[in-house]
């Protein structure tokens, strides 16, 4: 027979606050970065539109301005919601989707040797260091990992200990 469940229950509930804390930290990091990068785009929409155009996806050239206008604020809205823990699931999905798309597009650009970053979309040296190619791809993957962790933490929060 297995050991009495009291000790197991106590060890599980003692671990939960730590998970909750780290999930909060993950949301603040990812959400905060998205608010910062979104704001850097919002204050120079033309520069961001040009960066999107630099990917030279001809059929959607017409939509690049609209993409820049909406995407920049969507980053801020989703980032803020995630950092505050509001509409957590939806904001996590949307940020995760953006990270996946950004990572794929960055990887394609690097593979084709395109010089996408004109440096015109913002001059914050910290953001540039974090998100410029090639390290930007790894940054995005790390942020995706934090989102996955937050999703796991949310799904396991408040679950009773198994006997």
């Amino acid at each position: 027979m297995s050991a009495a469940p009291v000790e197991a229950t106590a060890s599980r509930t003692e671990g939960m606050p730590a998970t909750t804390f780290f999930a909060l930290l993950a949301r603040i990091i990812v959400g905060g970065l998205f608010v910062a990068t979104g704001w850097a785009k919002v204050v120079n929409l033309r520069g961001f539109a040009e960066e999107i155009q630099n990917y030279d996806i001809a059929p959607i050239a017409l939509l690049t301005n609209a993409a820049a206008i909406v995407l920049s604020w969507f980053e801020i809205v989703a980032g803020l919601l995630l950092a505050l823990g509001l509409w957590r699931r939806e904001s996590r999905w949307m940020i995760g989707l953006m990270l996946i798309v950004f990572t794929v597009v960055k990887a394609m650009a690097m593979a084709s040797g395109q010089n996408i970053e004109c440096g015109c979309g913002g001059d914050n040296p910290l953001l540039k260091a974090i998100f410029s190619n090639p390290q930007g791809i790894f940054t995005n993957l790390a942020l995706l990992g934090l989102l996955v962790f937050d999703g796991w933490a949310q799904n396991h929060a408040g679950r009773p200990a198994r006997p």
Partner: protein
Amino acid sequence: MNGSLARIAIMLLVSVGLGTVSAYRQGLPWIADVEAVRERLERREVVSKREFPTLTLEELREAIAAGAVIIDSRSPAEFNSGHLVVSYEPPVLNIYPTDGLEQHLGRLNALFGMPVVMYCTSLDCDLAEQLYVMFEQFGLLDNFAGIRIFKPGWVELERTDLPRGTGPDTWAGWDADDGYDDMSFDDPDDFFDADAFEDGDSG
């Protein structure tokens, strides 16, 4: 799931609303000018394959001391949030290649014979090079006493003690009726033939 879709729709709607305000304030249309985009991408292609005359920070200081025309090639939004300032006329001009050069030809024509320095955001930015190519396409290169690019750009200039300011470029050019009363450099003969103007002394 319906609740999640509704929340995502609200997030999108809020983004569209806020984006509309930002786009209006920055003069960015919702629909891109495909032809202008194509021209800009072709210009980038040209820029990527050639070298351009550049200058160091020390040479930039010397150019400013000599009254060179300084052109900031960043977007108006970036220029308004911070740019180099000089103590003479013309002030630092904001010419954003994407907006075209035609609207600036009038005031540029009045600056023929002067040395020009261009800068953008940073080493990664090629807007100054794009502007250089546009000058070339408009046949303006030989009209100035040399055009050079300060490659480190605004990111470097912010770290220096060179004067900086904010706000838009509102310089309309020299007022022909007043002659050159607003000129602030000591010796107009350095750049112009003073005999060609009635009021050639600095104000």
